């Protein structure tokens, strides 16, 4: 009675609808960061991450180099630890690297700004000079899973105002 073709097309229609529901329900997007897909993880501990979210961009001088992979609370000191997934294209950050939580625009979303600090050249020509300057033997490169220690938390407006009022009161 009903031809096979019609049955197949109806099946296609129904599965398309269910697929749309699944896509909407999960809103999954594979937000790769482009170029080569290989990444490594750096961690950083903050006092306050503000409204930073998973998959927020990580930028160096405005250029996206990676994304936030995971945000979790450290069970010992109750401070948020952010896992940063950074493209292996940018793999020589030294241990002087600083990371700040910044906001794009007044109402914009928050992102992580990496400040590379002292760069370590792979070639190693200027190293002696720099090392003399810092009085160190050698600057270490950050490897997969290392913590960035120099962090600055998100600015929380209420705290800023509170601080301002407190200072005013003190004078």
């Amino acid at each position: 009675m009903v031809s096979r073709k019609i049955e197949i097309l109806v099946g296609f229609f129904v599965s398309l609808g269910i697929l749309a529901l699944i896509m909407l329900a999960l809103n999954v997007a594979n937000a790769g960061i482009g170029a080569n897909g290989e990444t490594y993880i750096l961690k950083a501990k903050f006092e306050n991450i503000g409204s930073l979210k998973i998959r927020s961009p990580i930028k160096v001088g405005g250029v996206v180099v990676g994304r936030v992979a995971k945000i979790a609370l450290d069970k010992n000191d109750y401070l948020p630890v952010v896992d940063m997934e950074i493209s292996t294209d940018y793999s020589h950050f030294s241990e002087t690297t600083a990371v700040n939580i910044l906001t794009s625009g007044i109402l914009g979303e928050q992102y992580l700004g990496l400040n590379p600090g002292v760069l370590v050249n792979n070639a190693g020509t200027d190293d002696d000079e720099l090392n003399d300057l810092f009085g160190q033997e050698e600057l270490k490169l950050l490897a997969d899973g290392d913590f960035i220690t120099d962090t600055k938390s998100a600015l929380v407006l209420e705290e800023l105002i509170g601080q301002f009022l407190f200072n005013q009161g003190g004078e």
Partner: protein
Amino acid sequence: MIGFWQKLGKATLARFSSIGRATALLIGALFNVPNIKKGTPLLIKQLYSVGFLSLIIIVVSGLFIGMVLALQGYTVLQGYGAEGSLGPLVALSLLRELGPVVTGLLFAGRAGSALTAEIGLMKATEQLSSLEMMAVDPLKRIIAPRFWAGMISMPLLALIFSAVGILGAHLVGVDWLGVDTGSFWSIMQAQVSFEKDILNGIVKTLVFAFVITWIALYRGYDCIPTSEGISEATTKTVVQSSLAVLGFDFVLTAVMFSS
């Protein structure tokens, strides 16, 4: 004066008997004991003509509406440096309003009018009376499968519409205008809730599907069996179901999203 009373009374009686016939039709279609073996092929055939054949217009309109939303939203949001909020803007407007409503309007125009015309012509060519002569209930054989096909297709079409619209917005917003893809999706995910937005949207489409299919079937089943009658019934279907969709949308939105 008497003439006026008579006219008013006639109009009122006609309106009520029309509502009564429509309800009888609905009850006949809904509460018939379904015959799974015979009913399923009929339902599949209707799902094909009501659902699958509406797919192209739904996908194309969804794509373009998503793209336009992204383009318009971007120009405004950019002024505040809040392009990242493009994702939730598009997703929420599609899931809550545009998905159900535009799908409803398109569905009324594409499928509702076809249903009315088909049943109207069946009536005009006395196919419905022939069925009754053969002791086949036309409500069960003709109306019920079309009704359930509408109820099943509409939510699926609306979901496809919203999904394609969001992809279209992604196409314009991210690939063309350069909104960050990570914030597009992550802020969207943070703002869109499954129960509040997606499920409420589905409830809306179910209500619209019910109203549109009911109006379309009733208008066809109750039409004057002439060419003019069918044309008038088709027009009435599109006009009334479109207005009903917009009216119910306001009521449902007020109930669901205002708190």
